[in-house]
């Protein structure tokens, strides 16, 4: 099997002839990895996923999943993928078990296999006690888990997760991450997910593409992305009232330095190793370090670096986002 499970080339979606939702996106996802699309709401994440799962047709460019073209061989793509949508799509009037069986019917999984597998999956996501309860009685976390189970009924090779923890509280979110990791290990799938939670991308993804305004602006592993900022931040204060900038600059791995009211803010690679070296260098020059802190860059800083704004700022403009989404919906309708 080819190493590239998903491959997108200049993938583009334009709604209503002028609203560019996804703008010439190139990426590939390797076998067995968790690949994440990170970006604010309205950045084009869901549109990208919808093209890959054959719900939308690209306006331009092409993409393939497991070697099947998403337009020309859409039906083959549909057979080998699992989808966990952003919304709770399970039918509220049906029970959890009935919902999974409905999915099995849609995929054409043989009835006997489906029954066995459904029970197995419900157990895996710990819904077996509730399998005969109507979904309307389920909590948000339970519904999310049911969606996960539904998405796995056809034993997909590739699982698409669109904002898998949207609207869940912090604890439920962490629990959901565990389920996702477990499912991935259990079934050895490739995962493609979108999220606008930095912690989520950091905790789950092997590689991340940061997407904004329909374009991929950075793509790498979370740690490489963070390293690309120039490493960790070390803040140091010393007892003596002398300028030690020169000494610090002389230390290996130090990349940048700023003097902020007597404390030094140092950007350095391999912070854990560099910090002791700095202390050592200062001591040799007769200075005493009174305070030291070391912080690793977060994805938020990465995001800030690439998009010029914090992802939380992007979230702030909820109103704008809502308007945009309504327009998008309408655009899709026509």
């Amino acid at each position, binding site marked *: *099997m080819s190493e590239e499970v998903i491959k997108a080339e200049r993938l583009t979606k334009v709604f209503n002839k002028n609203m560019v939702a996804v703008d010439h996106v190139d990426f590939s996802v390797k076998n067995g990895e968790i690949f994440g699309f990170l970006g604010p709401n309205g950045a084009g994440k869901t549109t990208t996923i*919808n093209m890959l*799962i*054959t*719900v*939308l*047709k690209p306006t331009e460019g092409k993409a393939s999943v*497991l*070697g*099947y073209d998403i337009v020309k061989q859409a*039906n*083959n793509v*549909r*057979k*080998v*993928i699992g*989808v966990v*949508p*952003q*919304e*709770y*799509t399970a*039918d509220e*009037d*049906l029970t959890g078990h*009935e919902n999974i*069986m*409905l*999915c099995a*019917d*849609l*995929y*054409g*999984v*043989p009835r006997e296999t489906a029954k066995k597998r459904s029970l197995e999956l419900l157990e895996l996501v710990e819904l077996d006690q509730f399998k005969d309860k*109507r979904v309307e009685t389920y909590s948000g976390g339970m519904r999310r888990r049911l969606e996960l189970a539904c998405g796995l009924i*056809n*034993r997909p*090779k590739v699982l698409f997760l669109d904002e898998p923890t949207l609207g869940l509280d912090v604890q439920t979110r962490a629990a959901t991450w565990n389920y996702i990791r477990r499912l991935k290990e259990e079934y050895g799938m490739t995962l493609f997910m979108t999220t606008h939670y930095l912690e989520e991308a950091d905790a789950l993804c092997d590689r991340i593409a940061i997407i904004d305004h329909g374009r991929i602006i950075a793509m790498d592993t979370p740690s490489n992305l963070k390293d690309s900022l120039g490493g960790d931040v070390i803040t140091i204060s010393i007892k003596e009232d002398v300028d030690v900038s020169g000494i610090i600059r002389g230390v290996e791995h130090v990349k940048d330095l700023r003097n902020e009211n007597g404390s030094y803010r140092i950007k350095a690679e391999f912070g854990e190793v560099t910090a002791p070296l700095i202390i050592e260098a200062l001591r040799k020059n007769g200075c005493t370090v009174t305070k030291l802190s070391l912080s690793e860059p977060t994805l938020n800083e990465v995001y800030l670096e690439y998009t010029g704004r914090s992802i939380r700022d992007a979230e702030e403009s909820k109103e704008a986002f809502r308007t945009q989404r309504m327009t998008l*919906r*309408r655009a*899709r*309708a*026509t």
Partner: protein
Amino acid sequence: MSEANEYHPSMLRGLWALTVRELKKWLKDPVMVLMLVLQPLIWMGLLGKSMNMNAIFSANSLSNIELHDIPIPGSLLNPPVNGVVILPGALITQQLQQMFSDIGSKVMQNTFGVKDYFSYMSVGMVSMIVMTTTMFSGMSIVWDRRLGFLDKVISTPVSRAAIIFAKVLNATLRAIFQATVILALAYLLGLQLSATFTLLNLLGVYAAIFLVGVGLSSVFIAFSLRSTRMERPMQIISLVTMPLMFASNTFFPPYLMPDWIQAVAKVNPLTYLTDALRQLTILPLDASALIFDFMYLGIFAAILATIGIMLSWRYLTR
């Protein structure tokens, strides 16, 4: 790759699964089902029984008429007699009432084809319910779309046609269920079946309902697919129901209506549905009329289903 061929999603299985889902949703709400039965019962009971056309043409309508004695000059009679003959008013009133009653049932028979208006109206009620049910049940696709269910189904290998046909089938099955209930209730309330009625005729009734159901629901599904809000299809439905209902033979024979309404009634599919249903239940069956009705309904269903499916298809393959 072998995995791709592991499962065999079939059109029939998908269609069945999606239809069963809809029916389950429906049956899990017994109040809703009860309302669907109550609604026609109320219509039928109130409209059919309160608009008591038969009573208009009965002796009762003339009960308070008192005719004076009529003096007739004897010279006018044949053969002429002397003096004046008095025709007693009471006798004339009695005669008139008797005659009016006889004429009345003839008038009813000539106007409605059956002697009692209730039978005429309750079959009309069946078509009305078929129309509203098939229009309304397509609307659930607005929710399927808004809740993301539709997109999820689109991402599975199930046949696109099955997605639409499941809705159509659901609408039609509901209409058939309701039609059966209304006919049974109407029978209990005094609907008079014609001599040509057999239980086999029910199959014809269902076939006619099926055709109208397919036509109307496919168009409304397509329309609902394209509206982001429930209100829009609802408004369209309330806009078209009234004209379709009254510019047809549902409650009154069109040939007594003004020309322009007759023109509408002539193309109104409800006219042909109602006529087919009446032919099969309360009227003495006229094979040629029935065949014509079915041909019209068949063409109607084919055209509307084509339009509807083409429009829906465009949405399903955006």
